[in-house]
């Protein structure tokens, strides 16, 4: 039998349903692939082989009786940020040592209800804070991609680096991920995979470890646009346990994939043409516009004047919300505890030992900008700027723009332990320059692999949509994917 891991999510699902192979056979193939690859790539922090086989057998039994859900038997990887009953859930952090939740996140519950199988939990930047997956307590994830004629290890991006690496290296049929400033789209771009951040409120945040609650949104990382639509269909939906979950029917995303872009107006924001942007990114962007035009889209220049302020505003809002959310890790309720002579000393010792350097840095910044005397100057100001960023988008959508095309990242994947990024936190933050505006405005956006740089590394384009119009993103993303027509399978070295 051919390698069952080398199939799209859709082909996997259809093959299991048609009894070309069993769910158990697919799961076993993935478990073998993970066992062989994980020592090199470090994509999984926990492999749940026994549970995966049990779930796969149940899928086979259901299908034998003519039952089965939309993802019956499809093996998925789950980012370590999602609470999964009785299994490893530590958000890539030392402070959640040994935490095994007594409850299941709404999104994973939706996936299991549709028949999906959990292979294990995926590595990530600690508490989703990072753009390289190097802040994980469990060590860096290695990108399955390497530059041509190079043995140098590259980062898979972050924070959903384990999700992106696992999908790219055929270690799961699809993966859950989360995006607070670009954490789905940037790793997808670095690994030649498809990642969508849905509209804020589309997917329930219940049971997803919180980073910055007004920005966090979960979505899938997959190998194709169609797979992305199928997986989001199962993840999304109203949940009364999340007060910001939106009570809207979930459209059939998969039905929109082949809809095309004829007659759509695609906006090209001039503010995304950054100084010092590599020529190959600019060329790719122009190529993407040409593809959309060839299929009948109208291309129109637009202006989003507050774009450059999105990242600085983000570095107030996100750390502020994080410092508040992360107050719960106190050595009392779960995870790590480091004793002290008083309760305050115990808190301080626990949090000093349990949080890594980047998390501490952000909690400190957040605490500072929320502290007495600074709240108005920083936090309130940033939230006002956020209103202006959102208004920019509302204006162009009101003027008839259906979606916006931009680059996804300012470069291809960079090396692990990059000296410049390590020396200057802001340099690392600039990775999210094209993605973060979308979180600030709560909009949906998809990253689709569209080309390769001079060293053969994947590059992606980003499409930004109107609130709750993920369908247009799937349709336009599919045009980019089909027009590029490239194979985004990394050359196996692991």
């Amino acid at each position, binding site marked *: 039998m051919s390698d069952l891991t080398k199939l799209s999510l859709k082909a996997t699902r259809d093959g299991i349903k048609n009894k070309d192979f069993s769910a158990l056979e697919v799961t076993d193939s993935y478990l073998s692939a993970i066992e062989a690859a994980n020592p090199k790539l470090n994509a999984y922090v926990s492999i749940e082989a026994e549970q995966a086989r049990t779930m796969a057998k149940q899928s086979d039994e259901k299908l034998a009786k003519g039952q089965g859900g939309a993802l019956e038997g499809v093996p998925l990887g789950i980012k370590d940020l999602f609470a999964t009953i009785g299994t490893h859930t530590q958000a890539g952090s030392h402070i959640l040592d040994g935490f095994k939740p007594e409850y299941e996140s709404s999104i994973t519950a939706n996936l299991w209800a549709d028949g999906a199988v959990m292979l294990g939990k995926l590595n990530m930047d600690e508490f989703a804070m990072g753009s390289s997956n190097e802040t994980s307590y469990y060590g860096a994830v290695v990108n399955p991609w390497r530059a041509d004629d190079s043995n140098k290890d590259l980062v898979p991006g972050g924070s959903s680096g384990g999700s992106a690496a696992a999908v790219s290296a055929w270690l799961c049929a699809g993966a859950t991920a989360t995006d607070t400033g670009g954490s789905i789209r940037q790793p997808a771009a670095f690994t030649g995979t498809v990642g969508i951040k849905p509209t804020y409120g589309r997917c329930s945040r219940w049971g997803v470890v919180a980073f910055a609650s007004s920005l966090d949104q979960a979505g899938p990382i997959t190998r194709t646009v169609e797979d992305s639509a199928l997986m989001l269909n199962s993840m999304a939906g109203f949940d009364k346990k999340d007060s910001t979950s939106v009570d809207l029917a979930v459209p059939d995303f998969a039905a929109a994939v082949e809809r095309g872009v004829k007659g759509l107006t695609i906006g090209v924001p001039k503010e995304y043409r950054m100084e010092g942007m590599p020529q190959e990114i600019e060329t790719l962007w122009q190529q993407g516009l040409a593809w959309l035009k060839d299929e009948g889209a109208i291309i129109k220049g637009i202006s989003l004047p507050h774009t450059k*302020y999105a990242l600085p505003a983000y570095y107030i809002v996100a750390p502020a919300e994080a410092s508040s959310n992360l107050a719960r890790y106190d050595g009392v*309720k779960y995870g790590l505890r480091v004793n002290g002579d008083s309760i305050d000393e*115990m808190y301080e010792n626990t949090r000093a030992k349990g949080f890594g350097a980047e998390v501490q840095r952000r909690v400190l910044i957040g605490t500072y900008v929320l502290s007495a005397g600074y709240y108005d100057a920083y936090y309130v100001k*940033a939230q*006002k700027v956020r209103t*202006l960023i959102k208004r920019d988008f509302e204006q162009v959508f009101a003027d008839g723009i259906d979606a916006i095309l931009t680059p996804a990242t300012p470069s291809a994947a960079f090396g692990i332990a990059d000296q410049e990024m390590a020396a200057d*936190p802001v340099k690392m933050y600039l990775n999210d320059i094209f993605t973060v505006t979308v979180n600030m405005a709560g909009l949906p956006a998809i990253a689709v692999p569209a080309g390769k740089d001079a060293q053969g590394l994947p590059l992606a384009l980003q499409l930004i949509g109107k609130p709750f119009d993920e369908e247009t993103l799937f349709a336009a993303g599919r045009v980019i994917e089909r027009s590029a027509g490239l194979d985004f399978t990394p050359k196996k070295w692991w």
Partner: protein
Amino acid sequence: MSVDANIVKRIGHLARIKLEQENLDGLAGELNTILGFVEQLDEVDVSGVEPMTSVIPASLRVRKDEITDGGYADKIVSNAPLSEDNFFMVPKVVE
């Protein structure tokens, strides 16, 4: 606005993170880099602009005030580093 070692120490205490004396200057430098970066916002005229409170036009839902969940204290404390009789245990806080 910039921070020095003393301010970092105070923030560390507010955040309940023990910071080592020898790291304070380094941290102050890193925090100042970030604060310097966000200072760009001073260029933006925000007069008359409302701060964002919700990114989507939704009002919070209300429901009947009734108990819909609970009754499993043992599960709540099951991940605690230290518990007794379904209570969380902490260092002594009253003399």
